[in-house]
């Protein structure tokens, strides 16, 4: 069983197989399951992600609180009708990431990657690069195994919980996972995936979890938007041959230690950061009224 990114990459290099294959082989061995069984479970997850993306860019979804919904759709429509500044692929990733999180906020069905609050980044980027790289369905499933392999290391060596490590542990982890998987799908080497993960996560270090009214909505939906764009940029940087000066495992470790020292108010308590702004508080009062004891 690989315990860190270095071991993961070494196994892939030694056996001359992609990261996704290392993850699949480990899953087969440690859980005594067939390749077909594992593959079809992951394909079902892919189907759930695809449905959530489609729903979010086509339907006018709205959360129970009314705080979020419809922005993924709005951006998607803007891309169809306008010459954009950032480019179609980039903005499609952003639109689809937001769409997924808006469906999540509306208590729709999603697949946690690695969490629900950060569920937009991986599918958002996947369903955007798909149009450029034309992957097979199998390659799309592999994208999820590669993401999962890096997420597995982060979850075991640091955290993927906003309550424990802030948003860097959720959207930050998702961004690194997506960046690594984009690199593999684009034909990059395992070590380049690790570099993409390191650079993407570095860009998210210190990000706090400060949801307005404690809801997985503001700023979560838009944090997923920026996670998706960071993932694409980090992937391109790694594919260009740029390397992270700090090794990926040490970045993950730094993320963990930053999370440990983050104040309680900035770890999914809805008490600090954006949640504590005058407008954030006003939304909270509007949504929950004076009947709750929450401050």
């Amino acid at each position: 069983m690989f315990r860190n990114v270095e071991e993961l990459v070494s196994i892939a290099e030694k056996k001359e197989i992609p990261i996704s294959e290392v993850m699949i082989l480990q899953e087969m061995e440690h859980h005594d399951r067939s390749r077909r069984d594992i593959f079809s479970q992951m394909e079902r997850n892919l189907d759930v992600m695809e449905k959530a993306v489609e729903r979010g860019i086509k339907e006018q979804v709205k959360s129970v609180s009314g705080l979020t919904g419809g922005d993924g759709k709005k951006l998607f429509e803007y891309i169809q009708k306008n010459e954009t500044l950032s480019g179609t692929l980039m903005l499609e990733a952003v639109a689809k990431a937001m769409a997924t999180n808006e469906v999540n906020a509306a208590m729709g069905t999603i697949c946690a990657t690695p969490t629900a609050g950060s569920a937009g980044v991986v599918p958002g980027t996947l369903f955007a690069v798909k149009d450029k790289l034309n992957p097979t369905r199998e390659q799309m499933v592999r994208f999820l195994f590669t993401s999962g392999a890096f997420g597995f290391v982060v979850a075991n060596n640091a955290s993927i919980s906003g309550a424990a490590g802030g948003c860097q542990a959720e959207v930050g982890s998702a961004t690194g996972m997506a960046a690594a998987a984009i690199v593999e799908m684009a034909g990059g080497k395992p070590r380049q995936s690790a570099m993409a993960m390191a650079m993407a996560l570095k860009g998210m270090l210190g990000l706090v979890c400060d949801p307005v009214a404690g809801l997985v909505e503001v700023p979560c939906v838009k944090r997923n938007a920026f996670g998706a764009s960071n993932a694409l940029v980090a992937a391109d940087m790694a594919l260009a041959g740029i390397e992270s000066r700090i090794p990926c495992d040490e970045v993950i470790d730094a993320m963990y230690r930053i999370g440990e020292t983050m104040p309680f108010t900035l770890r999914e308590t809805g008490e600090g950061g954006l949640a504590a702004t005058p407008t954030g508080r006003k939304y909270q009062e509007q949504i929950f009224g004076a009947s709750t004891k929450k401050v």
Partner: protein
Amino acid sequence: MKYRSVFDIIGPVMIGPSSSHTAGAARIGLVARQLFQKEPTWVEFHLYGSFAKTYLGHGTDVALTGGVLGYDTSDIRITESLKFAEEQGLIVSFHEEEAQTDHPNTVRIRLGDKQSEMELVGISIGGGKVEIKELNGFQLRLSGNHPAILVVHHDRFGAIASVSTALAKHQINIGHMEVSRKEVGKEALMVIEVDQNIGKDILSEIEKMELVTQVTKIHE
């Protein structure tokens, strides 16, 4: 290692909005329901840390209730579980606790019916994964991700051997096992995580053993 499968990371498929506060909460509720083995008529949820601060916004209340009603994380009925609870005559209450706990997402569930009651402490550690830390005053560690049996027994020599021998006879492999007791020589609890679901015949065989007082199971 806390996370052992890629599907802990890419998954679960769930009803939003939060893997720790919604899906994890539903799982803890479901484990409580499975361990109680019958329909409770009342349930109290004592919420700590981030659970206490944000449970309304995350649907933690409907998720916990849905779990206790037996719903899985992807069951759409979760969104209306409070209504279903009322229809079924399950009295639900929530209590925001001030105390600081080791983990920010902690819930203490007390539930029961006219005959008996049960208390457990669960934590939601991220990405929908949970751990049960305490059951009726016994310290333990149970993931709820694998089939498991919980055996209440007398703290005497031979109790563990007789249970594990019975499992061996039925060719059941033990993946993880823990034993805890409150006092030497009194009541003790065995938690045994296994690789496959355990049939009723084996459970009743274990329940009939001299040193065993109660057996419950968690299935996949």
